[in-house]
Every structure is written in C-alpha cells, then in structure tokens.
C-alpha cells in the first residue's frame, strides 16, 4: 500500500492508466434478449387488453362482488323458498297454484311446492287427498310417496295415504308413474289408476262422476273398500279418533255424507258388519267386535 498518493480528482479526465490495457468487455448472458422476450410474450398474450378499465377500481370490484352475492342469494332463496299448505281434520282447503291452476285439499292433506322456482321446477309434493283443476297449458308433476302424476292439462283427483295411491282422471289426461316399479300409464277421463303395495299399477274404468258425488261436496262413496280406510276417512272428516282394537279384515261398500252426524255415519257402517262402537270420550270412538 505504498501508492496512496494518487489524486482521485484528476484521474477521470486523463485516464493514462492501467484500465486502458483491458480489452472491451461484455456480460456473458446465458439467455438472449429474444429468449426473454418470447417467454414474456407468452405471458402477455394471456393478458386481457381491457384489464385496465374493467376491474381497476376497488369500488367496482366490491360492487361486482355484491351483485354476485345478491344474485346467488336471491336465486337460492327463490330455489328453496317453499310454500306449504296443510288442511286439518274436518277441513277442506282451496288453494291457487301458479298460473291459475287450482287445488282442493281434502282433510289432513299436505302440499308443498316452490312458487318462485315454478318456471324451472314444476313439481308439487302431496300426501293426502287432493283434487286438481289445471288451467290449459300448465304442466306439472305431483309427487307422492308411492306415485307421481304428471298433468297434461286436466282435472283429476289424487289419493295418497298410508301407502295407498289412487288417481282418478275426470277430464283431459294425466300420466301416472309408480315410484317403486317405474311403471307408467296415461289415464283418460273416467279412468282410475291405483298402485299396490309392491308398486304395481292397475287401471280401472270408473263411472262418470259429478262433483256432488265426491268428497268435494262432502259426499263419500266407497266401493269394496277396507273398512279401516272408511273409518280413517270418517275420523278425518269429523275430526274424531276412531280406535279399532283388532285388525278388521272387512270390506265395505256404501256411502256417507258430511251432512249427517258422525253417530249416524258410524251406525251405518257398523250395522253392515254387526259390530259395535262406544264413545270413549268427547272425540274418540272405540270399535267393539263381538266374539260371535
């Protein structure tokens, strides 16, 4: 370190120095400028030109998110909003469906559908008994535990209780399908389809019925019907509990009207089989079967 006396101030001007003995130099790049450009170009090709405008501002982004959230939220609400209508015992409920169709629910019946999603999902869930009057061109499907009925513009009645499923077609056509067997049938007016416990479909002809011969006017007609089902109907229509202690393996044919008192109706049915009933309390009857 003996050459400390160099004056740094002058050197930049003169440069008569050792550095001049060095040849010109370059940086030994491993990648050429073109290579770098090509890999950059791949990336910028994916870049949308409109980027700067579209999601530039925070507010815009925030409001886009809010709009999406709102859309998803309201779609979910529309999709899952369910209207449920139930009828109690001894009650008949009238109800209007979307697009002007009407339903009449017999006692103890439940119906569910998504009114706000009706455009996309025309399905109604129903258990109990209901009469449908469908306005023209309005197509939908009624789903119950063991059967589905697709409306093709018409009036019809569905009975779906305790595994029994019966559809009566009054006017127009309906398609009835069995949930368990997958069988399908198209019903014409005055035909009745029933699905048995194994899921098999049967179609029977029915005499034409007017409204005053059916539950809608408080008239109940039974043809070869298990008596337990008759008692069930009576208890529904009058809001009573009817207890049958044993399995009653009896078949009943006859009718009753809601204009009658429950006592009259019970008498009518029981007399036919020689069985008896006693009043257990205000709203309960017990069936008594005599040993002989």
């Amino acid at each position, binding site marked *: 370190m003996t050459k400390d006396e*160099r004056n740094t101030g002058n050197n*930049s001007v003169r440069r008569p120095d050792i550095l001049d003995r060095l040849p010109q130099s370059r940086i030994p790049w491993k990648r050429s400028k073109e290579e770098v450009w090509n890999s*950059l170009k791949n990336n910028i090709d994916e870049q949308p030109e409109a980027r700067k405008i579209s999601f530039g501002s925070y507010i815009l982004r925030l409001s886009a998110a809010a709009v999406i959230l709102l859309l998803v939220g309201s779609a979910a609400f529309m999709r899952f909003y369910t209207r449920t209508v139930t009828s109690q015992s001894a009650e008949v409920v009238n109800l209007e469906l979307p697009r002007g169709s009407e339903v009449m629910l017999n006692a103890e019946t439940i119906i569910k559908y998504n009114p706000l999603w009706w455009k996309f999902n025309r399905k109604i869930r129903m258990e109990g008994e209901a009469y449908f009057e469908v306005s023209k061109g309005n197509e939908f499907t009624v789903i119950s535990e063991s059967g589905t009925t697709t409306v093709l513009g018409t009036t019809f009645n569905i009975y779906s209780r305790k595994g029994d499923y019966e559809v009566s077609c009054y006017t127009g056509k309906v398609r009835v399908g069995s949930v368990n067997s997958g069988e399908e049938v198209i019903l014409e007016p005055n035909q009745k389809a029933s699905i048995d416990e194994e899921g098999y479909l049967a179609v029977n002809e029915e005499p034409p019925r007017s409204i005053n011969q059916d539950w809608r006017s408080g008239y109940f007609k039974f043809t070869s019907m298990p008596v337990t089902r008759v008692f069930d109907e009576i208890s529904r229509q009058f809001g009573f509990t009817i207890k049958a202690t044993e399995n009653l393996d009896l078949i009943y044919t006859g009718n009753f009207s809601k204009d009658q008192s429950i006592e009259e109706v019970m008498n009518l049915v029981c007399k036919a089989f020689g069985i008896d009933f006693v009043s257990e309390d205000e709203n309960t009857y017990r069936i008594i079967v005599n040993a002989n």
Partner: protein
Amino acid sequence: MTQEEFKGLFDKYFDSIRSYIYYRCGDTELATDIAQEVFMQVWEKQFEIQNGKIKSLLYKMSGDLFISRYRRKELEHRYLNSIELDYLEESPEEQAQLKELITKYEKSLAGLPENQRDVFLMSRNEGLKYSEIAERLNISIKAVEKRMNKALSYLREALEYKG
C-alpha cells in the same frame, strides 16, 4: 399500453436494465430474472409511457426488486468473488499477462461497493455519459462523479499493485 408499445419499451431498455442488475450482483441468471419480472410488472400494471419518466422508473423498480431478491440470495452465497465478463480479443497485452490482469480486474470489481460498481460499469461498459447515468439512477451528476472517482482510484490501485 398496446403490445407494440410494450415491445418497443422492451427493445429499448431491457439490455441496460439487466446489465444494471448484473453490475450490482454479478449473477447473470438473477439479473435476467429480475429484468424479466420488471417488464412483466410494467405490462401488468399498464404504466403510462411518458418518456423520460419510465426510464428512471424501470431502474428504480429493478433496483427495488433486486434488493428484495438479493436479501434472499445473499444467504446462499455470501461473498461476491468476481464479476465475470467476456472480452473482445484485440489487446496489446500478452495472453498470460492479460489473463492475470483480467482475473484481478474481475476480483476488484467484486470488491467495489455496489453503488460505485454500477456507476462505473454503466460508464465503462455501456459508454453512458455521467448525465445519462444520473438521470437513470435518479441521482445528481455530482454523485455520479464522486462514485466514479472512488471506483477508479480503487481499481487502479488494486490492478497496479504487484502488477
């Protein structure tokens, strides 16, 4: 910024940007990566091109990126041993002597403080005027002169020693 404008910017400045980073770190790959990333950012952020301003912005961006990257790299190889360069062949020196001189030179460059080395090499390798260097690095011409003088005296001393 259209693709053509971007390409123009790249053609004009890419070389000097990555050289600048190389002068600071002596690692060609790191310098290339950083320069590439700087241009990617320029495209993504869609800077308005106002000539003059963009130039010093590019240096600023690459310098910042280098510092954040270098902190990581620094741990891997702590010491910068030499700044490697390729040399053009015409030289009055004899091969053996020249080789020795070059080795010394490259080692000495590595021994320079970063802010002297980049100024010195921008001037020497790229032939930039002090005023141009000052503009790019956004420092005063006086500062450039000062760093140049320090670098020169250090290098001369290092090369002449025993040489």
